[in-house]
């Protein structure tokens, strides 16, 4: 949205009195670029350089290692359960928040945000307290030979907890900004509630939903603290990709650790690209919606 707003601003020559002299401007830009280079660009390039430091064949043999494959499988399994769950929840929650007014709404919003302010390690701890060997349901679970902690189910629950807010947080403001006029139009033309939802509400927020899912997936793929508490770090079984990176690093297989880390880095970059595209699209869509309502400043054609 920022980028789009910057574009729409008419280009004007800044007055000397309301802008800085070119020398100051250049220094500030230089400083900012240096900061970005040191803080952001350097680490990413270091990941790639370290990953290939033992040569390309070492890179691919690290990726082809059975433990890497099992880590990828475990991560994908966890994501494929946690992300759809939170996606459905996020749409429901955003729908409640945006389209209805009820007492305690701000409490609901705050509760959805809670996982963001809980340290990941504590998030893991919560589920150990519930399902661990000496947890609340511990005796019951051992009796029935169900393993949750130190197994995939625990990792799924911990991931669900950590990634719960993302879709709802993306969608709620978007739905709120678009209002319920479109839905009302659909309903008054004879569509059922379900039809309205599928044909009007969802298409209106599809870009925000996409970004929410990408954020949720990125976090689910990369979650470290919470999952490391509940996974038990069994290699070839409950190691996810980030945990596998840690095991490799702790065993001083640095090049291999960075090779696996580069997979996660690629996904992080994809996330950023999607984010940029989506911000562009939603800004345009919102502008269109506002123009349709005859706002005085209209939209861009």
């Amino acid at each position, binding site marked *: 949205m*920022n*980028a789009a707003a*910057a574009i729409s601003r008419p280009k004007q020559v800044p*007055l000397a*009195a*309301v802008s*800085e002299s070119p020398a100051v401007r250049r220094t*500030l*830009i230089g*400083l*900012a670029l240096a900061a*970005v280079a040191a*803080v*952001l660009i350097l*680490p*990413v390039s*270091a*990941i790639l350089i*370290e990953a290939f430091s033992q040569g390309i064949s070492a890179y691919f043999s690290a990726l082809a290692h059975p433990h890497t494959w099992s880590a990828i499988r475990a991560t994908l399994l966890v994501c494929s359960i946690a992300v759809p769950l939170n996606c459905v*929840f996020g749409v*429901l*929650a955003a729908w*409640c928040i945006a389209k*209805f007014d009820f007492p305690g709404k701000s409490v*609901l919003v705050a*509760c*959805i945000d*809670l996982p963001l*302010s*809980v*340290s*990941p*390690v*504590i998030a893991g*701890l*919560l589920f*150990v*307290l*519930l399902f661990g060997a000496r947890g609340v349901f511990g005796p019951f679970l051992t009796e029935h030979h169900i393993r949750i902690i130190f197994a995939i189910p625990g990792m799924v*629950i911990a991931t669900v907890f950590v990634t*719960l807010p993302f879709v709802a947080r993306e969608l709620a403001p978007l739905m709120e900004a678009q209002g319920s006029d479109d839905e009302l139009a659909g309903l008054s033309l004879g569509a059922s509630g379900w039809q309205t939802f599928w044909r009007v509400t969802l298409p209106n927020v599809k870009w925000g939903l996409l970004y929410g899912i990408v954020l949720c997936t990125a976090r689910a*793929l*990369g979650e*470290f*603290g919470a999952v490391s*508490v509940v996974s038990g770090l069994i290699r070839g079984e409950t190691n996810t990709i*980030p*945990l596998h*990176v840690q095991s490799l*690093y702790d065993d001083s297989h*640095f090049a291999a650790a*960075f090779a696996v*880390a580069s997979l996660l*880095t690629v996904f*992080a970059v994809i*996330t*950023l*690209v999607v*984010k*940029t595209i989506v911000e562009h699209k939603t800004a345009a869509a919102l502008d269109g919606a506002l123009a349709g309502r005859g706002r005085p400043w209209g939209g861009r054609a």
Partner: protein
Amino acid sequence: MGLTLTYLSLVVLIPLSMLFVKAGALDLKDFVAITTAPRVLASYRLSFLASLAAASINVCLGFLLAWVLVRYEFPGRRFIDGLVDLPFALPTAVAGIVLATLYSPLGWLGRPLAALGIKVAFTPVGVVLALSFVGFPFVVRTVQPVLQSLAAEDEEAAACLGASRFQIFVRLILPTVLPAVTTGFALAFARALGEYGSVVFISGNLPMRTEIPPLLIMSRLDQFDYQGASAIAVVMLVASFVVLLLTHVLKWWGRRIGAWG
């Protein structure tokens, strides 16, 4: 509506309340004994001070970057704008190992710094560094929209009335942006308090020196000391809730200023 609440309570509220139940089962005396043990206190102190330092660094760099991104045109501006969120997108474990490698005594940056007598890896400096990486986007993202919405007319009017550029900055721009800066600071601080993945690699986890509370929770869990872990966790959680509450107050303050400005 009902579904939302059920899911939320199953996944978030019930587990969270369990934590307080577990810690509440402790005697007050035991609770105090666990949470004020020297090693635990040292970790709280490190976490608090390092988060404070990291959030302050984030304010300086973040404000600079937001200013430059909003106010100036230069090649690659869009690219950098997109790149700012990298620390959010990059898994913390990956950030942790790359920072540890860069700043280790043999690393690209660690070696020249070591020659200058500055040790980063395995010291509190390393912890601050990792935390400031993780919190980097917060201040940029809170300040950017406010800077963008500043009306050029106000500055032009001030200039017409004879204010110098410095006066305009201190008396017009700074007060408007201040709530956003503080919100960004609080968000970065809150995130830093709970951070685990990016810190454990660079800190070296030396008892009393570079241990952070989440690490102590981990080691208590490894010994199946659930109550000890819960006690430490409750203190951390309460601290982060206080910070969260403060950010809400700050947001309200920001809106009030916005309405009056």
